[in-house]
């Protein structure tokens, strides 16, 4: 029972790590890393959903007569990875601009500079 659910537990642990990073880290790059960890957790969760016992990947060339899985979760994961790439790139480019303005990426330092 616990072995079967092990992949799901791993995904949830990853997501919780990501949320922890978002809440308690004060470095912008670390925030981006936190979001990427949540994203990996969610993607892993989607891939895990696609697993069915005793069935093969849906490749029709030379296919055996065994059961095939429906490739929807894999398609979802691919789309999600591409979107994640775009969001990460945008966030990192924002971090570069913030660094140009403040010469720091620590949130506390930025606040101090803004008050002055």
């Amino acid at each position, binding site marked *: 029972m616990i072995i079967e659910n092990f992949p799901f537990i791993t995904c949830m642990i990853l997501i919780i790590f990501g949320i922890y990073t978002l809440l308690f880290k004060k470095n912008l790059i670390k925030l981006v890393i936190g979001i990427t960890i949540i994203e990996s957790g969610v993607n892993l969760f989607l891939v895990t959903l696609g697993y069915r016992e005793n069935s093969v990947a849906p490749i029709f060339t030379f296919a055996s007569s065994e059961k095939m899985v429906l490739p929807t979760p894999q398609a979802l994961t691919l789309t999600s990875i591409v979107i994640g790439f775009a*969001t990460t790139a945008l966030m990192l480019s924002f971090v570069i601009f913030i660094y140009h303005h403040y010469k720091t990426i620590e949130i506390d330092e930025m606040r101090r500079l803004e008050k002055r």
Partner: protein
Amino acid sequence: MNLLEHSPALIVAIPLLTGFLTPLVSKINKKLRNFIILISLLLTLILVWNFAFSYIFPREEPFVYVFGANSPGITLPSGYKIPVRIIFEIDSIGAFMSLITSIIAFLSFIYSLEFMKKYRGLEKYYTLFLLLTAGIFGMEFTGDLFNFFVFLEITSIAACALIGFHVNKSSCVNAGFKTMVMYTVAALFFLLAVGLLYGQYDALNIGILATKINGSLLDKLALGLFITALALKIGSVPMHFWVPEAYGESPSPVSMILVTNTQASLYALFRICFTLYGIVMNTALIGWIIIILGILSMFFGATLALIQRSIKRLIAYIAISQIGYMLLGVGVGLTTLENPQLLQNYGITAMRGGIFHIFNDAICIGVLFLISGAIIYRTKIYDMNNLGGLARNMKYTAIFFIISSMAISGLPPFNGFVSKLLIYESVYKLNPLLSIIAILISIVTLANFVIVFHGVFLGPKLKKFDNINDAPKEIILPIILMIILIVISGMFPDLFLRNLVEPAVKSLINKEIYISAIGI
């Protein structure tokens, strides 16, 4: 096959393709680029209107559009039927939202022509602008949860890049980063919830899922994630802190279309609560959660606005509190969904108020952002403490400001009065306290606008504003058009209520029609 029957695909495709054509055309000629964007947005507007009034509102059942096939069903060799294609399912509320989006996007573009003229990098601005428009249409049309996630991320990326458009200002970049973090976390929560549902029922289509869902613990967890994610996207109060920065730092036409983006997420929240979970869950409980979110948003939005000094941030806080009214109205409708007698008694009225307020909020908050943009365009000052006496120089702007602020505060004879009155009188029957809070918050909203009007338009003549007059006609024109809409919908609310709002409310309540339209 009639080309107009492909409208749902065209409405999303035209802004999307024009968006990616823009950088190419921009290399040839700037005027040609503006002309092409104008034509594409006008075409979208006409298509949306034609589609809504000839295909959606006259019919009872929703319009199902399947990409690459005539019908949604496909049979696997095992006989298992499942909608694997991309499906758009548009009913009256989706059409109602897309009408608002098309008007706002078109007027926002006309405003951008003059307002953004002096900046570089406009080809990227317009690309992102059109992407945002296409994404919002997609969110309103799609009948599939994963598709909704994709469009949600399209709008997130485009919106955040637009918020941080002025990269030379540190506050803009900050706002863009903050909003992007919030939007991404919301979208990932949404995707996790979609995964939870897919793992149990092997379906992504909203209609199919609604027939299969059985209210297990995982479903409740998914509902919690959906509500959290979408409440974050609409900026409801515990998760509101990105809103003032996003609306306040972005260029004014962008703030206007961001309001519409927010409302598309609001539509998704209603769709999930009514259609997806309406049959199996205790809707009274969900309704109360939404009412509490609404009351919190109303209260904190309007009171925090009182201490703002930047005019755009003040309007942003008012926008948060107006979202609360829609949540309140539709939430009250949701609590009565299981009891037909109460639904007839006051539930439908509350929902009519809430849905009509979506239209009023888009128009009024939008025009307030445009007016603040016109002031900033002329004076280059954001801080209200440094403004004053502008009514002498910008007469028309002052008049427009009075009309729009009266409309959003719910004073007769404008449209905000109609929707808010519908909300007050029906919410009173559920719980008088809610109604009293709503009326009080309206007064606080009016007080906010009295402060702005006094600070910006009244007072002695200031020497630094001697050479200032009303903004040029490209900026005034969209404002005038929206003011005309405010006045018409205030004078003849029945026209709007009967033809637009009534079908939209019906389509939310009669969820079985939406669910059975897929027909598998």
